[in-house]
Each structure stands twice: as C-alpha cells, then as structure tokens.
C-alpha cells in the first residue's frame, strides 16, 4: 500500500534532565491530514515531546523524521519552521509591534535601497491573513489583539513559513465557549486544506470533538495510540491516570433546610458588566455562576470579594456588609477567594509556598505585624498535607510547581482563613485531570463543613456538583438550573439559546 510517509514520526525518544527522565523511549506517529490529540497529566512528558518535535531541544536517544526524512540540525531554524510550527500557550507575539511586523519579523521586505518597505510588508501581511481568512487589521499593535485573534495570527504566521503541520499547545485554555467554537471551525477549515494538527489539551471533551486519533502519555512513556471513536471516555481517563477513574462525583447532601444565608446579593448593578443581579447562598450550599467569558459572571464574583464595587445594590456576607470595593473588608467578613488567573492574581511566583499560602492571614502568624517563621511553616505544612501539594517542602518557590499544584496553593490560601464563603473563578483552568478531581473534591468537602461556595466558571465539570447553577447572559441572571442538568441544556442557556422555544 503506497501510503504517504507520516508527517512526523518520532521513535524511541529518551530525554533526561539531570536525574529526571522526561521521556523514556516514547514515540508518536502522525499521518498526513490527521488531527492528532496528545493527552496526559502534567509532567507526562508532553511539553518535552513538543520541544523535541519543534527542534528546540535534541533528544538524548531516538530519531525524529519528517515525511520520511531525518530532522534538520537544531541550528537550522528555517528548515524546522518549514516543517513544523507550534502555537504555544505563552505568546510568541511582540506586543508593541504591529501585526504586520510580527508576521514578517526578521524577514522584512527590503527595497532597492536596502531599507524596509513598510508598504510591501503590510500588503504581504494582508494577503497572508486574507489567505487564511483571519480578519485582523495588520496595522493594529499586537497587544490590542485578544487571545483568540492572537492565536489566529500565530497560526497564519506558522503557515506562512510553509509548515503544514501545526502543534497547538492547549489553545483553548484561555478561550470562552464561543471562541473555542470559532477556533474549532478554523481548525476544520484548515484540515480540509490539508493541514495536519497535533492538539494538546486537558479537556477530553475537546479531544472527542475535534480529533480523530489520540495518543496518551503517562509518566514519560507512551501508553497508547488509538482512533478516538474506539476509545470510550472512561478508558481514556484510565489510560491517563493509570487506574480506572469514575467521572461522576459522589452524591452530596446539600445544605440543610435551616441553614443561614452566607451571601446575599440584592439588585447589584455595575454598568457595562452586569445589571440588577440578586441571589443568595446558604451555608453548605454550592452555587454555580455559569456564562460565557464576557457575560458578566466574573465581574459578579469579583464584586462579592471586593475587587470591584457595585454601582448600586447590596452585598451582604454572613450578616456583615463589607465596604464595597475593599478586599480586606471582604476577607474580614469571611470570604476565601480563588481568582480568575492564578498567574496574575493568584500568587507571587518567586515567593515560597509558605509565604503565598499565608498571604491573607499575616495577623495569625505573630504579634504586632511580625511573622513567626516557624508558625508560618507549621501552618504551611498542614496546608500541604491537606491539599496534597507535591513539593519537597514549604520553602519551595511557587514558580517551581506544576500548574495543578500551583492552583492547590491558591486554593490553600483561599481556605487559610477558614472562610464562611468561598468564591472560585475558573478554579480548574489549566489543571490536569487528577488535580481537577482533587480540587473539586476539596470544594465539596469544604461545603459539607458548612461553608457556602460560589463557583464562577464556564467549565461544565466545575459546575456539575453545584446544588444549583445560575446562568448569566449579557449581564443578567437568566436562568436557575437545579442539579442534574444535561450538558446541552446548560450550554444552550449560557449561549442564550432557548431550547424549549
């Protein structure tokens, strides 16, 4: 059978960093036209494989071939760029420069005088974006692009080097549901035009939606490769975790009938974000706040914790009315908070786990503003134990932890002051399957102990355990859905579609 050689084939790849083995005789074969998923928990070796496939690092052992030919030398960046391109989670766009310049960086068009001809550069950039139907003005400074546009621009740039094999490293992590849909449509378009994808994601749902083949890595090894259709979800999760995992969470009791309110929001409004929002949460109750990224759900949650001040209306936490727009007041009233983006608001990367975890409770660590190092470390150790944070000790900087463990530190900080009300925004973004289960399990545990929980998320798995889900659409609470909903029911509500109508 005269099948084409695989777009890329890596065999017997071993890579060590010091004493740790990042990849052990792992391999992957990607056929032309495939959309191939690569899944695995944090630390399974996905990123190492990506850097080897893109020529950023050399494997210690093993071989990589592109279309049957051996990979170029590492120094030959141009040759690599013609074969493979990667859209990383971290942007490789230069914010101050225009889109056009970003597209043609270091390969500007020169006129006869040897100077750059901006007109030609812009025209070529426009052609390129038109070719791949990316609707962005090439004169826009790149910093003004949103995540979605940025990714499209990066994909177009990758294609412009001649690569027809693109690696997408967790492309959906920062996108909302409708942007993800647009991204998937774009991927399908490109699939039809013969582009091959390697798709890395934590969201198994997406793997089933967009990919035809899936490869699972676990503990630096290749575990299996199979067509997506032949692999039920439970088997996939089992392959990733190395054990059979049940996806459904255990039944919760829910709040008792006479539980007091821990949060009352009464006709709060913030122009441009949300309007006339009222709801209450009882002790021990888990309430979801669902909605697309720009729906206003995040702003509502941030108002509760004092990051924003509502224009009108009342926020009452456990009987107190903290001063609007004051985080210290909200903390004092008994709020624990996991912010939207852990890298921005969650932790100080170079500070230790102990310092980060106790950032909200300095007054418990010693008298008169002094901090007792031993008391802090004792506190941190219990916290590390409770949340099963994988670390050699409390003195490790948070930047040295994996994404899942970083999020656990943020969660630990939220729980440090024994909150009456726990507010979580996208609590499992960029977190692997096991850490996700653990974090959500912890939330349930906290709720069982009588804390009210508010989860603002568009991640269905986060919302599944909620006693009820409030759906926010264009700044208004449009629906309240009790537990036991179907996925399509909630998604339709979040998108503003009325299924019954």
């Amino acid at each position, binding site marked *: 059978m005269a099948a084409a050689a695989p777009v890329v084939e890596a065999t017997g790849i071993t890579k060590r960093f010091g004493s740790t083995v990042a990849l052990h005789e792992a391999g992957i074969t990607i056929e032309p*036209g495939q959309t191939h998923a690569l899944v695995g928990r944090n630390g399974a070796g996905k990123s190492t494989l990506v850097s080897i496939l893109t020529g950023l690092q050399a494997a210690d052992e093993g071989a990589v071939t592109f279309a049957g030919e051996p990979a170029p030398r590492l120094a030959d960046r141009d040759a690599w760029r013609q074969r493979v391109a990667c859209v990383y989670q971290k*942007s*490789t766009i230069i914010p101050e420069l225009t889109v056009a*310049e970003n597209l043609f960086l*270091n390969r500007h068009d020169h006129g006869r005088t040897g100077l750059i001809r901006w007109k030609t550069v812009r025209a070529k950039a426009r052609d390129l974006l038109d070719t791949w139907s*990316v609707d962005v003005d090439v004169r826009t400074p790149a910093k003004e692009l949103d995540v979605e546009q940025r990714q499209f621009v990066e994909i177009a740039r990758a294609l412009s080097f001649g690569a*027809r094999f693109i690696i997408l490293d967790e492309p959906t992590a920062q996108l909302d549901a409708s942007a993800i849909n647009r991204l998937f449509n774009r991927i399908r378009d490109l699939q039809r*035009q*013969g582009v091959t994808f390697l798709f890395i994601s934590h969201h198994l749902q997406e793997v089933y939606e967009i990919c035809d083949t899936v490869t699972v890595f676990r503990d630096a090894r290749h575990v299996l490769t199979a067509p997506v259709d032949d692999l039920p979800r439970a088997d996939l999760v089992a392959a990733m975790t190395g054990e059979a995992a049940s996806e459904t969470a255990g039944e919760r009791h829910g709040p008792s009938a006479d539980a007091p309110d821990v949060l009352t929001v009464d006709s709060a409004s913030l122009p441009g974000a949300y309007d006339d929002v009222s709801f209450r949460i009882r002790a021990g109750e888990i309430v979801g706040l669902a909605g697309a990224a720009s729906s206003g759900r995040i702003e509502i949650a941030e108002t509760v914790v004092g990051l924003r001040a509502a224009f009108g209306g009342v926020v009452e936490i456990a009987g107190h009315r903290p001063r609007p727009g004051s985080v210290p007041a909200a903390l004092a009233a008994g709020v624990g908070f996991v912010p939207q983006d852990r890298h921005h608001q969650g932790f100080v990367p170079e500070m230790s786990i102990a310092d980060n975890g106790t950032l909200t409770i300095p007054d418990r660590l010693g008298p008169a503003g002094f901090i007792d190092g031993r008391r802090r470390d004792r506190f941190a150790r219990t916290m590390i134990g409770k949340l099963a944070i994988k670390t050699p000790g409390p003195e490790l900087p948070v930047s040295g932890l994996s994404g899942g463990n970083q999020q656990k530190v943020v969660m630990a900080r939220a729980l440090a002051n024994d909150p009456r009300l726990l507010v979580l925004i996208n609590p499992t973004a960029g977190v692997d399957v096991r850490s996700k289960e653990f974090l959500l399990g912890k939330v349930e545990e906290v709720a069982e102990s009588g804390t009210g929980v508010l989860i603002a998320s568009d991640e269905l798995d986060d919302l599944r355990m909620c006693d009820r889900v409030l759906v926010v659409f264009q700044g208004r609470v449009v629906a309240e859905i009790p537990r036991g909903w179907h996925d399509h029911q909630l998604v339709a509500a979040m998108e503003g579609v009325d299924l019954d109508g």
Partner: protein
Amino acid sequence: MAETTTAAPVTGDGAAGGPGGRVAGGRRIAFARMRDLALIPAIVVIAIVGQLVSPVFLQPDNLVNVLQTMSEIAVLVLAQTLVLIVKKMDLSLESTVGLAPGVAAWLTVPVGAGHGLGLLPGGWSVPITLAVGVLIGVVNALFIIRFGLNGFIVTLGMLIVLRGILTGISGGQTFFQLPESMLYLGTTQWLGVPASVWLCLALFAAGIVLLGFTSFGRSLYAIGGNVDAAKAAGIRTDRVLWIVIVSASLLAALGGLLLSGRLASVASAQGNGYIFTVFAAAVIGGISLNGGKGTMFGAFTGILLLFLIQNVLTLGGVPAQWIGALNGTIILIALALSRVTGGKAQE
C-alpha cells in the same frame, strides 16, 4: 489510509477574504503616529513663550546656540535610546563622556601642563578617545551579556569606577592644552553652523532610519518587546545586544569628544550628573524603560524640549542658582504631561 496521500500543501485561495477589518484601523493608526509627534505642540508653546519673554529667542544665533549646547548630551540620549529599546540600561555613559577624552588628553598633553604624560603625538587623541569608548562598552557587555549580570547594577558600578579612574589620572584637575585634532569637532563651523550640530542631527537622522527601516533596528524592538519571540524568529539576540551596548559607549565617547572640543579642556567632573537628564529626555520623548517602545524622533524631541525650556529660563533672567531646582521641576512636569498625552502608565 489511501485518502491521506492526497493531502498536499494548498495555497488556500478558496478561503474568503476578510476586508471588513481594514477600514476601522485608519483613525487609530493616525493617532499612533500622532503620539510620535506628541511633544511638537509643547515645543511650539515653548517657542511662543520664549519669543514673548525675549525677542532674542527665535533669532537663528540663539537657536543654533541651543542646538550646540545640547548636541553632546543629545548624542548620549541617542545612545541610551538604543540601549533602552533592547530593555537594558547604561548608567556608565556619563562617566564615559569624561573618561574617554580624559585618557586621550592624559596620553597626549605634554608633560608640565597639568597631569599630561605626553607619551603620544596629538594625532592619536581622537582614535584613543573612541577606542576607550569601545573598550568600556566591551567590559559592560561582558558583564551584562556574557555573565548575565543585571545591567543597572553593572553600569552603576562602572559609572563609579570610570569616574574614579578619571579623577585618578587627572589628579582631580583639568586637562588643558588639548591637541588640535581633539578641538576640531567642537569648534569648527560648517556652513556657518557648528560641526557638532551637524554631526548630532546627522546621527539622529541615521538613528531614525536605523530604527524604523532596517531589519537590525526592528530587531531591537523585537528583543526589547519579547526576547523569546525574537529568538524564535531567528534573531541572534546576543549579537544584537553586544552591538548595541558597545555602540552606546562609542557614542558616549564621541559625545565626550564634542564636549571637550567645545570647552577646550577635560575636567575631572566632565559629564557628571548627565545621566539624569539623559533618562528624563528619553522617557519624556516616549521611550519606555520596559523596552521595545519609542522612536528616535521622539527621543530627539524630548531632549530638544528640555533644552528649549532651559534656554527660555536663562533668557528670562532666572538666577543661575535656581536653574537646577527649576530644571528638576520641569522634568517632573514634562513627565506628568507626557503621561497624560501618552495615556498609559509609564513603566
């Protein structure tokens, strides 16, 4: 698997174009270019005020005088602009201004006049000045790029060391009787305008072209904006940084040469305190201390504005003792104003 064989590179001409986004950007782009000219209105206002204060202000002689007194420090601003755009800093420039011509004077000024050694004929003085500049740049670059030390601290150390060396070789005194070749650039007139003014303007013109229209210039922005992305785009970042840091010191040496030529001497404190004005001019001119942002033209308007204001104050008869305090105040006001016109927090 047979169907996969058909997959081949496609030009994608079937994809629909998206012309919709093109129109909206026009106004914003015009505005972006306006920001480059943000200081022009301020300069016009100063010109009007200056003319009201003293009819001498707009006389060609006075304007040439302003340009000449600012030419040396403007060369430093140019050098610092290059360094700031790649997200580094060079504080030692102000000491290089003194040391580079200082070493040349030390070696060429005849024995008997001050601390001169008279070891070399006067013709060597200009090459020595420039060579000292390059050498200082190489030392800076070694520390910053090769050994990965923080540029701020390295050049702060260099600032003190270089100043100390100049004080050492000069015995804390001033070198006089400089060789003829050292005086040339600072004193000669070309077409009725001092050579240093021509040189300064030519350097800025070259800087505008370099930063705006050459791959090398654009790579400075790429490095300052996102060094990893620059590397990924195939830019040899270390080499570019070396060139920038060494060129900056070379330019500072040239600035020192202009200054020594104009004053016909090298004082042991030559250039002392310049760096604050240099940074202020760059930031007022729209150069970000966070790298990757600003233009050479903006930097030029920054230094021009500062010197015009100074000139107006002098013409207005402000006592010399108060010029320092006023200067500092003006820098702060100018920063505040450029914050307002720039619209974003300065980093």
